[in-house]
C-alpha cells in the first residue's frame, strides 16, 4: 500500500492566501510516500512546505511558478503503475480529454496527472486513467467558475489504485473514491 498525494494549482500568493485550514490539518508529515504536484505553487515557501510533508516530491512546471527549473513533464514508476505528470497549460485545448489521452500515450503511462483547469476530474479510458486534482486552495480560474478546493490521494496496491478525492464544499470536507484496476503488465522494476 503506497499513498501518493496528487496536488497542485495552489497559486500562492497570487490567487490564494494559503491552503484551507481543514486541509492543512489533514496533511501531516510521515503519512504519505510520494507527492506529485502539477505545478503553479507558486513560491518557494510552498515547495518547502510540500517537501516537509514528504521528501519524495515531484513537480512539473506551471506557467506562474517562481522557480523556472521544474520539468515540463515527468514520469515515475510506483509499484506496478507508471505515472505521468504535466501541468496541462501546454495541452491545447485545455482540459480536453482526447488531447490529454494523447499525452498519456506519448508518455506511455497508466495514470496521467495534470491540472491547470482547477477542476477535479478522474476518468478512465482505453489507455489508462487521467486525474486532475483540481486546485488545493480553490484559486480563481478563467476556465472554471466556483472552484472548490480539492486534492487527491491515491492508494496504490498491486494492480489496483483507489483514488480518493477530498473536496472542501461549503466549509466541509467531502470525500469520494474511485477504484481502478489495471490488467497485468510485463514485469517492470518497481520503486516505492
Amino acid at each position, binding site marked *: 500500500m503506497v499513498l501518493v498525494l496528487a496536488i497542485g494549482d495552489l497559486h500562492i500568493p497570487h490567487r490564494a492566501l494559503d491552503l484551507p485550514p481543514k486541509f492543512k490539518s489533514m496533511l501531516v508529515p510521515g503519512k504519505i510516500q510520494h507527492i506529485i504536484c502539477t505545478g503553479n505553487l507558486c513560491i518557494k515557501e510552498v515547495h518547502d512546505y510540500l517537501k516537509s510533508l514528504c521528501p519524495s516530491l515531484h513537480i512539473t512546471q506551471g506557467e506562474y511558478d517562481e522557480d523556472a527549473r521544474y520539468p515540463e513533464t515527468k514520469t515515475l514508476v510506483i509499484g506496478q503503475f507508471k505515472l505521468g505528470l504535466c501541468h496541462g497549460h501546454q495541452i491545447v485545448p485545455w482540459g480536453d480529454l482526447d488531447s490529454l489521452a*494523447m499525452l498519456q500515450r*506519448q508518455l506511455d503511462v497508466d495514470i496521467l496527472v495534470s491540472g491547470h483547469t482547477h477542476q477535479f476530474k478522474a476518468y478512465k479510458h*482505453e489507455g489508462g486513467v487521467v486525474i486532475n486534482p483540481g486546485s488545493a486552495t480553490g484559486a480563481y480560474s478563467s*476556465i472554471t467558475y466556483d472552484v472548490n478546493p480539492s486534492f487527491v490521494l491515491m492508494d496504490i496496491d498491486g494492480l489496483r489504485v483507489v483514488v480518493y478525492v477530498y473536496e472542501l464544499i461549503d466549509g466541509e470536507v467531502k470525500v469520494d473514491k474511485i477504484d481502478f484496476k489495471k490488467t497485468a503488465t510485463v514485469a517492470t522494476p518497481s520503486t516505492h
Partner: protein
Amino acid sequence: MIGNGIDDEDKWLAEGIAGIQHNAFYMHRAMDSNNLREALKYSAQLLSELRTSRLSPHKYYELYMRAFDELRRLEMFFKEEDRHGCSIVDLYELVQHAGNLLPRLYLLCTVGSIYVKSKEASANDVLKDLVEMCRGVQHPIRGLFLRSYLAQVTRDKLPNITSEYEGDADTVMDAVDFVLQNFGEMNKLWVRMQPQGPGWVKEKQDKERKELRDLVGKNLHVLSQIEGVDLEMYKDTVLPRVLEQIVNCKDELAQYYLMDCIIQVFPDEYHLQTLEALLGACPQLQPNVDIKTVLSQLMERLSNYAASSPEVLPEFLQVEAFARLSSAIGKVIEAQVDMPIVGAITLYVSLLTFTLRVHPDRLDYVDQVLGECVKKLSGKAKLEESRATKQVVALLSAPLEKYNDIVTALTLSNYPRVMDYLDNGTNKVMAMVIIQSIMKTNTCISTAEKVDVLFELIKGLIKDLDGTSVDELDEEDFKEEQNSVARLIHMLHNEDPEEMLKIIYTLKKHIMAGGPKRLPFTIPPVVFSTLKLVRRLHGQDGEVVGEEVSATPKKIFQLLSQVIDVLSSVQSPELALRLYLQCAEAANDADLEPVAYEFFTQAFMLYEEEVADSKAQVTAIHLIIGTLQRMNIFGVENRDTLTHKATGYSAKLLKKPDQCRAVYACSHLFWIDDQDGVKDGERVMLCLKRSLRIANAAQQMAAVTRGSSGSVILFVEILNKYIYFFEKGNPQVTSTAIESLIELIRTEKQSDHITPDPASDAFFASTLRYIQFQKQKGGTMGEKYAAINL
C-alpha cells in the same frame, strides 16, 4: 589589600565567636546554679562582643546570631523567677547596671519583652521606653541589629485587637506607633551608613547596605500583620508616616527599596484606595530612583488584582485609577529629565498592559496612552536605540494580542502616529507583526477606509520610506515581505461590489507607489481579486435605476488595463502577458468583444516586443493559443486577425520542433467543439499539413547537421492529431490521410539514418493500439475506423 581585609575580618569574627562561646560557658554554669548575678555578668561580657566596629554587616550578622541564641536561653532563665528569685520589675532595674550601653540595651530588651508579657505594666509604656532608649546606639550596624532584636522579641507581644494585651490604654494605635518609630529610627541609621575604613568603594558600600535592607523592611511587614491595621488606619496613619520617612531620608537606595516594599507587603485593595498618596510621593523622590520599575510593579499588581477579582473593577473606575496612574507617569517623566527614552516607553508599556487588563473596553484610554507616548516621542528624531524600539514594538503589539483583531487597533488614532517614530527597519518588523496577526486571526478587512489606514500603517513594506532604498535589502527577506503583502491582499474583501471596488481603488493607490521591485509581487493578487469581482458582476452590467453605479465590468477592465500596463513597464513582460490573457478570458465571459480584443492586442504586443527568450516564447505562444481557442465572442474578422497572428508566430519560433508543435496546436483554433463553434475542417488540415512540412524540414536539417535524422516523434504526434480530428468528424482528415502518415512513419523508422528512440517507438505502438481498440469498439466509431487499414 582587600584580601588582607577579608582575612582580618574572618580572624576578628572567629575571635568574637570564641569570646561569645567562652562567656556563654560560664553563663550557663551560672544559670545552672541559679546564680543571677554571675549570669548577668557573663551575659554582659558576651554581649560586649557585639560592640565591635570591625565587621562587615554579613559577618556581624553571624556574630549577632550566636548572641541571639544565647539570649534566648537567658530569657528562659529570666522567666523562671523561682529559680533566681528576682522579680521582673527588679530585673528590669537590675540589668540597667550593666557597664556598657550596648549589652545593657540588649538585656533591657530581653527583660522588657518578658515584662510586657507579665502584664504587670502597660505594654505600651515598656515598649515606648525601649524604643527611646535604643536611641543611645547611633552606630548604623550596631543600632540596626539592636533595633532588629527589639522588633523580634516584641513581635508577638504587640497589642492587637485579638491579643490579650489590649487594655483601655493600649490600642492598636500604640502598637502601630511603636513599630513606626522603630522603623523610622532604623531607616535613619541605615541611611547614615558611612564608608568604613580606607579603600572603600561605592559598590561595596551599596552591597553592604543592601545586605541590611531586610532588617528595615521587616518593620513594614510587621505592620501589615497587625490585625487592627485596617484600610482606615493604613490610609490615615501608616502610609502617610511611612511615606514621610521615605521622602525625607533623601536616600536613593532606601527610597527604591521601601517603595517596593510597600507595594509588595500591603494588600492590593489598600493600594487601590491610596493611589493618590502613593503616587503623590513619586515625584518627590530622588531623581535617580528607578521609579519606573516601582510604578510598573504597582501597575502589574493592580492588573493581576483586576484579573483575579473582576468584581472590584468598578472600584478602579471609582478611584479613577487610570487617570491617576496616567498623570503620575506623566509627572515622573517630566521630573526625571535624564530618564532615557527607553525608560519612558517602558512605563507606557506597563500602563498600556494595565489598561488592557483593567479597562479593555475603553478604547479611548488605550488611545490616550498611545497619545501620551506620541507626545513624549515628538520633537525627537526617529528612534535608533534598539531597546527603545523593542519597547515600542511591545507597545504596539499589546493591543493586537489583546483584541486579536487588527480592526480594533485600526480605530486607535494614535496607533499610526506611534509607528511613525520607529526607524524604518523596526517599522517593517511591526508591519510584519500586523500582517501575521491578521492572517492568524483570519480577519477580513472590509472597508476601503480600513484598508487605507492599514496600508498607511504598513507603508514600510509597501514603498521606500525616506532614506531607504530597496536595493539595500536582503533578497530573501524582501521576497518574504512582499509575499506577505501579497497574501494580505486576499484578506481584503467585501460582498458589496461597490465597496469592493472602492477597496480595490484604495489598494491600487498604495501599491502603485511601490516601485519596480515590488510591483511584480503585488500586482498579480490585485488583478485576481479584481477578476473575482468582475465575475460576481456578471449579469449586472446595467445601471441601477436612479443610481450611479461605478462597479461595472467595463470600468473595472479599464482599471485592470492600467494596472497591468504598469507591470509591463517594470520588466515583467511575461507576467503581464499572462495577466492580459486572463483579462481577455474574463472579458469574453462578460460579453465585451472590444475589450477582449484589446487585451489580446496588448498580449501580442508584449510577445512581439518583450518576450525574447526562446523557451519563454514557446510557453507564451501556447498560452495565447490556449486562450484564443476558448474565445467565443469574436466576430469573424477579429477572430481571423488573431488566429492569423497566432499561427504566424507559431511558425516563427526558433527551433523547428517547437514550431511544429505550436502550429499543430493552432489547428484547434479552427475547430471548437461547442454547437455554435467554428468547425473549419480545411483550415485545420492546413495547419496539420504545415506542421508536417515543418517536421519534414526538421528531419532534413538534422540529417544535414548531425548525420542522423533524429526521431520520428513529431510525426507520431501529428498522427495523433489527425486521429483527433478524424474522430471529431473533420471531413478533410480522411482515413487515407491517416494511412499515408502511418506508412510514412513506418518507412522513416526503418531507414538507416534514423536514430532509434524507444520513446517514439512506444508512442507509435500505443497510437496503433488505440486505433485497433477503436476499430473493435463497434457502433459509429468502429465503422469510422474500419476504413483505416493498419
